């Protein structure tokens, strides 16, 4: 896995990313010298412009089989363009995109790819079963195989009892599940999902991720875009953040935190009274309107901090322990909220 950290208009990462990049490149090159790598997905120097807008500026990305990758980025970062390019629906100006070593535009390659669009790309005036059969046929399934796959999909999405109901009568979560099922009927080795949980309730989101976990357990490579950072953090084993058409971060969540904002927990304190002296590591955060201190070992450092505050005349009336997460990383790298 290659790890990249770049930030253009924000303070430099606390730890130098160069060694890690070097390490990952070394890892990759040594791998290629031993065996011909066949990544599930491979993007090399992908460029795409729309008029004067550079939507993609040299995207490099490799995804191993069975990985669950979350693609994040603020609006207009190039996520949808990238997803469309991966699905072979967008002609790229430069570079190459390969699926298991074959160009993604190759028709035979497309059968190994499953696509779940953000919109409910199903026929609302067909029943669940009719939808599944239709999309199964479009992916080349027929006869007994098709029947078996449809039966499996109905069970997988938990809608066996609603198989003969028109999908327009379904709730948002149920429609989403049918939407996903239509994309996986042909058992794709790589599944690309664009915002699979947008607009659904937490229970349905949970159910959808269970379904994806099941696919992942069977070796399907999953690439998804999402605006739910908590989902990406908890459900995916790799995070790729893109901004301004470039990959600005790529790695596991722990790696990302460690290489950007660091692993220190932040203690946020509301203090009553006037501190007679400055306390090392304790600072006033005007944004939060709280005192903040960063600590590595809460069990040891927190009692010491509280003791110093008391000695300096302060009285802690509220305390909150904040653990670094993907949201912090995202804000740190992009300088923006995800939905901005």
């Amino acid at each position, binding site marked *: 896995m290659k790890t990249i950290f770049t930030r253009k208009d924000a303070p430099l990462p606390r730890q130098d990313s160069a060694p890690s990049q070097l390490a990952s490149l070394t890892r990759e090159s040594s791998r290629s010298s031993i065996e011909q790598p066949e990544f599930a997905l491979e993007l090399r120097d992908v460029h795409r412009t729309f008029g004067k807008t550079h939507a993609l500026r040299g995207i490099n990305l490799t995804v191993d089989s069975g990985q669950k990758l979350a693609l994040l980025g603020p609006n207009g970062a190039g996520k949808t363009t990238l997803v469309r390019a991966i699905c072979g629906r967008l002609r790229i100006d430069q570079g190459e995109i390969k699926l298991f070593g074959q160009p993604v535009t190759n028709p035979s390659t*497309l059968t190994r790819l499953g696509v779940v669009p953000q*919109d409910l*790309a199903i026929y609302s005036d067909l029943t669940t079963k009719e939808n599944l059969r239709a999309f199964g046929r*479009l*992916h080349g399934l027929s006869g007994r195989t098709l029947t078996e796959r449809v039966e499996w999909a109905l069970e997988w999405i938990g809608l066996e009892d609603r198989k003969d109901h028109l999908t327009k009568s379904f709730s948002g979560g149920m429609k989403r599940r049918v939407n996903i099922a239509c994309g996986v009927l042909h058992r794709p080795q790589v599944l690309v999902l664009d915002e699979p949980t947008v607009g659904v309730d937490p229970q349905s989101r949970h159910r959808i991720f269970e379904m994806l976990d099941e696919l992942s357990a069977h070796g399907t490579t999953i690439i998804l875009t999402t605006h739910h950072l908590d989902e990406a953090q908890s459900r995916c084993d790799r995070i790729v953040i893109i901004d301004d058409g470039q990959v600005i971060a790529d790695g596991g969540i722990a790696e990302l935190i460690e290489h950007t904002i660091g692993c220190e927990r932040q203690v946020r304190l509301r203090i009553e009274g006037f501190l007679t002296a400055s306390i090392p590591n304790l600072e006033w955060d005007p944004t939060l309107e709280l005192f903040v201190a960063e600590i590595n070992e809460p069990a040891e450092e927190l009692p010491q901090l509280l003791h110093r505050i008391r000695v300096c005349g302060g009285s802690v009336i509220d305390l909150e322990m904040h653990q670094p997460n993907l949201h912090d990383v995202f804000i740190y790298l992009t300088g923006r909220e995800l939905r901005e």
Partner: protein
Amino acid sequence: MIRTIIQISLLRLWHNKAELLLTFIVPILFFSIFAWIFGSRGSGGSTPKLKVVACDEIDSPVTQRTLALLQNTKSLRFHLGEQSNSDFVKPVSRESAEALVRRGMVTAAIVFRSKPSEDSDTTSSKDLNAHIPNTSESGGSKSPAIEVFADSFDQVASQVIVAFVQKASMAAQAEHAQEEAVKLQAARQAASQQVQGAQSVAIPGINDPTVRAIALSSQPTLSLEAGNLATIAVPTIEVIDVLGTNKSNPIVAMYAAGIAVMFLLFSATTASGAILEERENSTLERLLCSRMTMDHLLMGKWCYLVIIGCLQTTLMFSAGAIFFGLNLLGHLEGFAVMTLVTSGAAASFALMMAAMCKTRTQLGWVSTILILSMSALGGSMVPRYLMSESIQRVGQFTFNAWALDGYNKIFWRELPVKELTLELGVLVTCAFVFMVVARVFATRWDRG
């Protein structure tokens, strides 16, 4: 509260340009189109000319004069005959004239009959609705017996032509009688001079100048008046409907095609809007991510629209056969060919429209305007023979006109399929061109 609701509604209307157009611009547009078609503006006030052909079996001075007068009638346009290369009206044979009417080349044929008798053919095929009764057999008439072979597809034309023929025939007879009178006058003068000379020598008994003057003037005058009365007579005109006689309900055959083609276009365009819906909800994206290509998609949609179009038209004509006595079974072959080709062209048109539009709403109003205009110009709403010549020419550029001509040839003129070559050729070309345009526009949905 009420004021707020009105404000909101007005603002929504202002922001919805399609609704705004439908509310204020489209009615004016339609009014203009119909005014242009049926009003005098834009057409230069030209009334439609009736195409006729003449057959002169008598070939007398009166019939020749009648033809000459008819040729000078502005509302008639004479078929010049196959060998004619000038404006001179070359009469054709009776059979050719009837064939021309049957094929729809002319609206009517004017036949000066050599045997004004109870011709079994003509009497048996008289159409009671269109028949103008023999107006006179005024004692000892020398007026020519005239037949008008009419095509009751144009329900007005035969009556107009009969009136023109009647007028021309009587005028010709009058002119002829006048010439005869002039000749008689000349003969009378010559005779009177001879009589005068002879009487002065041979009738010495009549010496009274008054009695002599009466004797000289009375005889020729009486003979001239008798000659005039004998020559001018209202002609006998029989209108023979050469096409509508054997049809149980001739009107249905005409209108079934018109309505069928218009609704074929409407339903095909509505159905083709599904592709825009699929694009809007990303189903199209998903379809194209599978093995399917844009060519597959368009061909699949086209085949579906053709199937639906064939079913729709068959149902429509079947209803016509069941409820209105349309002879569908007697024209199955022609009907099948025309329906297949018309449905194909309608499907291509619908896909072209869908590919050119951005949203289903846009497709809805653009296609409504276009189809209604084409239907009005092409004869689906009102028969084209009622339109001015210039509008009829414009109508030739519409899809409907060619389809209707094809169906009319089958059901009305009862022509074999081989006679549909032109209509089928135009419709097939339309289908191909429309599909090519649809494919070109659909490239924007292809790989970006």
